[in-house]
């Protein structure tokens, strides 16, 4: 892909496994991508596809029994996986920060919003005095659109609504001006009007603060709204990756096509039924030898069940991992679907 110095984050062949009593679960199995400065990358996929696990390993929040077992994560030329615990702590919140799915439970209920914002600033020695930090916290709250921030800063999370809490979370994540923000389904727990507001806010802040964003979601609409590029994940692999327009208007992988045709569209007045993807996700404890999507794929061929397809370039900065790209002309080899 691109050269190292152009990219903020470079992930190469990352493998993350969970060592459970039942065996090794390969939650992320060799994914690679790079993220440029000021770029917004969407990661979509169904539950259990490894999208959150992948993001957690970037910020070093993987909890036992999860473990990075291979690959590298390079952030501005430094391998994050080689960081000591203290380096990692300084890295978290300072260079990379994260917002989460459920703002109702993500703020500590027994401390004021201000206390938690100031803490985010103070735990990275940036030379702020307590008063300066407080001033900065109020600025941040105003920036994320919280009215009456002077007064609100001394309130507790339970005095904030869900949308307000997510705004506070965003303020907290951006207070140290990180280069990368990881948003793990930040709008999933909010109702639709608030979702739109939060997305607007994130788009706005992304332009103002020049922050790159990794946006994890299963909502394709959200991806279309905010992202420049998108990676589609299935069972621990990236199956398709490219610019949002390319992926959405010219999907190459059968899974991406399946996702898109199972999503309702607002711009078409047809009364077509949504097409579900048949079958269930694979058991990650016993992954198939071939393509992970093979057992559910309408175009499954013999080779799909034998070997995993490599990620190949199918257009400019557009990649897809499917044997169909190799065998398009070879119709007779197609097995029964």
């Amino acid at each position, binding site marked *: 892909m691109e050269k190292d110095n152009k990219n903020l984050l470079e992930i190469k062949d990352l493998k993350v496994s969970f060592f459970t009593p039942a065996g090794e679960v390969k939650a992320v199995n060799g994914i690679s991508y790079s993220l440029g400065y000021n770029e917004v990358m969407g990661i979509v996929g169904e539950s259990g596809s490894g999208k959150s696990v992948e993001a957690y390993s970037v910020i070093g929040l993987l909890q036992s029994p999860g473990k990075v077992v291979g690959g590298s994560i390079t952030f501005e030329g430094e391998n994050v996986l080689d960081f000591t615990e203290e380096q990692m702590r300084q890295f978290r919140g300072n260079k990379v920060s994260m917002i989460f799915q459920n703002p109702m439970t993500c703020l500590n209920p027994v401390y004021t919003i201000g206390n938690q914002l100031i803490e985010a600033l103070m*735990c990275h020695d940036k030379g702020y005095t307590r008063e300066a930090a407080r001033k900065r916290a109020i600025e941040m709250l105003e920036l994320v659109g919280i009215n009456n921030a002077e007064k609100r800063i001394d309130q507790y999370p339970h005095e904030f609504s869900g949308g307000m809490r997510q705004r506070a979370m965003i303020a907290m994540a951006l207070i140290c001006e990180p280069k990368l923000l990881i948003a793990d389904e930040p709008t999933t727990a909010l109702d639709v009007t608030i979702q739109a507001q939060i997305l607007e806010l994130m788009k706005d802040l992304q332009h103002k603060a020049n922050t790159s964003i990794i946006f994890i979601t299963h909502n394709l609409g959200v991806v279309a709204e905010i992202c420049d590029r998108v990676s589609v994940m299935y069972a621990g692999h990236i199956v398709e990756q490219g610019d949002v327009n390319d992926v959405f208007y010219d999907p190459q992988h059968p899974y991406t096509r399946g996702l898109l045709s199972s999503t309702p569209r607002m711009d078409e007045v047809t009364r077509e039924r949504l097409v579900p993807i048949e079958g269930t996700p694979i058991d990650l404890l016993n992954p198939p030898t071939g393509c992970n999507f093979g057992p559910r794929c309408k175009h499954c061929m013999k080779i799909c069940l034998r070997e995993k397809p490599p990620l190949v370039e199918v257009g400019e900065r557009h990649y897809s991992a499917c044997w169909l790209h190799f065998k398009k002309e070879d119709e007779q080899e197609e097995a029964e679907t």
Partner: protein
Amino acid sequence: MAVYVIKRIVVSIMTLLLIMCITFLLMNAIPGSPFLTEKSTPEMIERANAKYGLDKPLYVQLFNYVKNYARGDLGTSLKMQEGTSVSTILFGQGKFELSIKLGVISLLLAVVVGIPLGCIAAYNRGKWVDGFLRVMTTVGVAVPTFVLAGLLLIGFAVNLHWLPTKSNSLPDFKSYVMPVISLSFYYTCYVAKLTRTSMLDAINQDYIRTARAKGVKTRMLILKHALRNSLIPVITYLGPVMAGIITGSFVVESTFSIPGLGKYFVQSVLNRDYPVIMATTVILSALVIFMNLVVDIAYKIVDPRITLTGKED
């Protein structure tokens, strides 16, 4: 807040009245009489009953109790030396202070030692420290006070001569050591267990993950974010224990010959000494009620989501 406290006090007084009624009825439901011995004749018992007003109808006796308690008069003992007032028995010669002092120190020790031990165990979950503490706290909760007190006596007083066998009125630091350890060990272990459990629960909450994502130091994660959230069960436990630790000191007080309050709680019931039973019960109940109020106020301090409205009372 003030309104809440006043409301609670009013409710407390009614609770105490109810407790008096129940205690009174239970005392009288036990067959026999305080004056019944092998030698006593029916005439003697009748005379004694008449002297102490026990021949009057029950409701009159109960009313007299309430009336006297309202005036601060706890009555006269039926069994002790002629005319010894109950307040002299319980509060004379600094007995009450002694028991309170012993109880408060033990409880403080339980908190100051138990909570950090719980934190250490939770933080090192699954490691040898946790395993060691788990064994220790389980033993601590299981071993009866008299066994522990006996072991301490044999070890430190009889064999090593480091500490005095009799603590009397707790004149110096040395005399405190064994009674306080014997009394607080169980509570220390229990508090440590409670803290560990609720700390583990808190550590897995989303806000801890948020704090980690912010780059908060591990020490602060535990001490600031997790600890305060895990204190509620500990506080809940400590309230009633405060009252229990004073009465529960009976064993410790007799083992170390401390002239405290503990033995009267037991003696009065065995003696069927009605006024003393009533007084000890009321004092204990008042302590429990008071500690519950303290606990409720402590909740409010620890967790801002709790509001003290007094409505649920």
